[in-house]
């Protein structure tokens, strides 16, 4: 019985996906929705197969620009988070600024980026970067800033410098926060890339969806949506796995 339950638990996400597809297909058929407004699941699947070549090409474009922006976001996020979290003064000084920056809709940056860098991959990479570095900064900084004072006393009395405390205690301690933020950041990075591509690119899934939409080929638009969310889900799971491997000590309750 417990084995059966466990199997059911592992299959649950797949069952949910299948159920959603079934509801989608049935709804479209029952209400007889025209395909240029809302294509059925089967029509979308057909589009996925028919246009596999161009979809693959554009997905690759979206994938690598997202990963480039994400990589940039991780590096900048880590460095900035370390700097902001390592000093109370900087923490208080920079935090409101970061929050204010994060509140700006990133799509508003795209026209600026186009003026600076022209149409193409660069604005997409930078938009992905701008949207995804914030959660990394906040998480790393918070992990560092919330050190137990007793632990700090134990080390300070030994003559530990600020950097010792940060490297021996602060950084490992903030790793679970960091890896948790990566999962959020990677999905945000996809959002950033696609938003930029729909406005200012002639490559990528965002562009593909935009041009397909203007030709009323809705099944292709929906195929694009599915490809993006599939890529984001795979990357999310990858980072969830990485998180579990790297910071197992922080998740002991779930074993």
């Amino acid at each position, binding site marked *: 019985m417990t084995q059966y339950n466990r199997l059911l638990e592992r299959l649950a996400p797949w069952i949910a996906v299948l159920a959603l597809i079934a509801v989608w297909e049935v709804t479209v058929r029952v209400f007889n929705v025209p395909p240029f407004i809302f294509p059925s699941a089967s029509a979308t699947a057909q589009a996925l197969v028919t246009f596999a070549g161009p979809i693959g090409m554009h997905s690759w474009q979206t994938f690598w620009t997202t990963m480039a922006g994400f990589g940039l976001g991780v590096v900048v996020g880590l460095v900035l988070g370390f700097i902001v979290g390592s000093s109370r003064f900087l923490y208080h000084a920079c935090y409101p600024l970061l929050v204010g920056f994060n509140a700006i809709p990133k799509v508003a940056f795209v026209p600026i980026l186009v003026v600076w860098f022209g149409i193409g991959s660069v604005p997409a990479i930078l938009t992905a970067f701008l949207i995804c570095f914030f959660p990394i900064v906040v998480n790393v900084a918070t992990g560092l800033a919330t050190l137990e004072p*007793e*632990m700090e*006393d*134990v080390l*300070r*009395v030994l003559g530990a410098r600020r950097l*010792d405390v940060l490297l021996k205690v602060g950084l490992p301690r903030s790793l679970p926060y960091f890896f948790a933020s990566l999962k959020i950041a990677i999905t945000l990075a996809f959002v950033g890339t696609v938003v930029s591509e729909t406005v200012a690119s002639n490559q990528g899934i965002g562009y593909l969806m935009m041009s397909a939409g203007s030709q009323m080929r809705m099944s292709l638009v929906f195929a694009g949506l599915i490809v993006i969310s599939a890529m984001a889900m795979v990357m999310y799971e990858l980072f969830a796995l990485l998180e579990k491997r790297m910071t197992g000590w922080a998740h002991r309750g779930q074993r």
Partner: protein
Amino acid sequence: MTAPATLDQQTAAPPGAATPFVAFDRVSLAYDDSGNAIEEISLTIEEGEFVAFVGPSGCGKSTFMKLCTGLNAPTAGSVRVDGAPVGGPLKICGMAFQSANLLPWRTTLDNVLLPLEIVKPYRSQFRRRRAEFEGWARELLRTVGLEGYEDQYPWQLSGGMQQRASICRALIHRPRLLMLDEPFAALDAFTREELWCVLRDLWEAQRFTVVLVTHDLREAAFLADTVYVMSRRPGRILERRRIDFPRPRELAMTFEPPFTGLVQELRARIGTIRSS
């Protein structure tokens, strides 16, 4: 708060005596404008002496520890340790607190080794002499009864075992001064008494100087050579009490009249402070 300081003459070192290991001379500390946390503390601690501080909560016992280790500087008066005025964190100190504060990503052994990665002169030798240092840590863990748990992570240990490891961590760099801030307060009564004996045995073997801050009068009287009773904030020393029970002391002693009488007396003293 009205009780005047009843310092006896013994606290001031008699002229001509060897310099005491720790000497507080009319020390006061105010963290901010809200007044002194401790006030006019004068006392001396000999090398190898076991000293306990008891008093109502918030009486500045932990402040005393921070002054003694050089984590805080006094607002008035002077603190001398080992003959020299304290000007910054003292590397000859080890510290342990009520919460064990072990790092969850390090094994017990690596947790105990942490101070050697930081304190001079060991930090520069750590890579080269790692095997030797590990030997020290294993030996220390064995003496506190943690043999076989070296490679376990802190969350796999019980609270008492974590506290044992925490004491090992405080002792690994062979400090001459051990600071204990209510180290057993979060443990159950049986574990606590067990750890008293662990601490007693460590001290008997190595004879470092101990400053123990505690709420537990039995603990203070069982372990210490000298018990200081502190007043409410601002903390002053109200009484200095030598504990002359012969050593090594056995736990059974704590249930017998001379000891229970002493604890009663101390308790009454604290009771009057609390109600004043």
